[in-house]
């Protein structure tokens, strides 16, 4: 069976920085999104064609979804670029990660038992006399903890930045550092810890779902290669969409909480 690695396999090294196969596919995802955005903007028409019509419907739906959480259209339009970018980026990354060729096309390296492939986790079966090691060229970006952790840290930092921008630095910090009473001080400390826990939870939710989906597809393809993987690919399409949606909606909910003053909620 194709060996499964928890960490992404590097394709080559730039100095000591490993250029991994997940990084390659995430750059491709960025390229696809940039191309789509550029084409939509170039072919802008007052009377929309098909593609622009779909984009306008998507924008309107997303904006009204954000309205239901944030409460008013002006706030939605302020935060929509950030939340929609998170959604689109994770969605495109997840869906590109299940295309045929991702995980199956790669580089095979033959090496002797005395050498080890740099940076790889070499299992005991691989140390044969003359063995080969397969590195996929592309891999779903969210199956790399670096990708999800980076997005999670970015999201939590941006939620706090939006909070400071909306209600002012002093009010925002007073949610965490509140000296009015011992209990409130303790609650402030807990709030701070929960910000850190949010980062971890964002990162691991997306990573766990996508990595587990990859492992599932590999195992099913190994057990029953014909016809059986089809429902699992449907599951992966669905899970990819749901995880992107959940990440974006959670970011939105946290923005909604952060941009409201402490006593004004509800």
């Amino acid at each position: 069976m194709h060996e499964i690695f928890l960490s992404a396999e590097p394709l080559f090294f730039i100095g000591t920085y490993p250029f991994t196969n997940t990084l390659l596919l995430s750059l491709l995802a960025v390229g696809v999104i940039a191309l789509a955005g550029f084409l939509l903007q170039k072919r802008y028409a007052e009377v929309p064609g098909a593609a622009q019509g779909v984009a306008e419907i998507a924008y309107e739906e997303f904006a009204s979804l954000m309205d239901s959480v944030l409460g008013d259209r002006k706030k939605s339009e302020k935060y929509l670029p950030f939340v929609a970018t998170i959604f689109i980026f994770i969605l495109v990354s997840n869906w590109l990660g299940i295309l045929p060729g991702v995980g199956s096309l790669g580089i095979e390296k033959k090496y002797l038992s005395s050498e080890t492939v740099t940076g790889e986790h070499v299992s005991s079966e691989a140390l044969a006399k003359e063995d080969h090691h397969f590195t996929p060229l592309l891999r779903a970006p969210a199956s790399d903890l670096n990708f999800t952790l980076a997005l999670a840290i970015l999201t939590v930092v941006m939620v706090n930045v939006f909070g400071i921008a909306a209600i002012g630095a002093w009010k925002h910090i007073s949610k965490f550092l509140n000296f009015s009473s011992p209990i409130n001080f303790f609650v402030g400390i807990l709030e701070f810890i929960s910000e850190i826990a949010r980062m971890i939870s964002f990162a691991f939710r997306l990573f766990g779902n996508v990595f587990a989906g990859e492992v599932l597809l590999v195992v099913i393809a190994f057990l029953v290669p014909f016809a059986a993987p089809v429902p699992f690919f449907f599951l992966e399409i669905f899970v990819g969409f749901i995880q992107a949606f959940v990440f974006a909606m959670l970011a939105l909910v946290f923005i909604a909480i952060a941009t409201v003053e402490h006593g004004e909620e509800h």
Partner: protein
Amino acid sequence: METEAVKLWATMGAIAVGTIAPAIAIGMIGSKGADAIGRNPEAAPKIQTAMILAIAFAEAIAIYALVVALIIKFV
């Protein structure tokens, strides 16, 4: 018992026990959500959004257990 055998048992235990509570939680969230929509069909979109969010939080716990199991197995 050798380490390999203990690893396999640990993997199985982590994922088997770790998905009990999230499964119960998601079932309860879904049931209360369906109740609420039944009582007040007009508020269905709001209830739906809150329900999906709560289910995502509950599922994340199962995913943490899964990640621990995968780390035990593959690292």
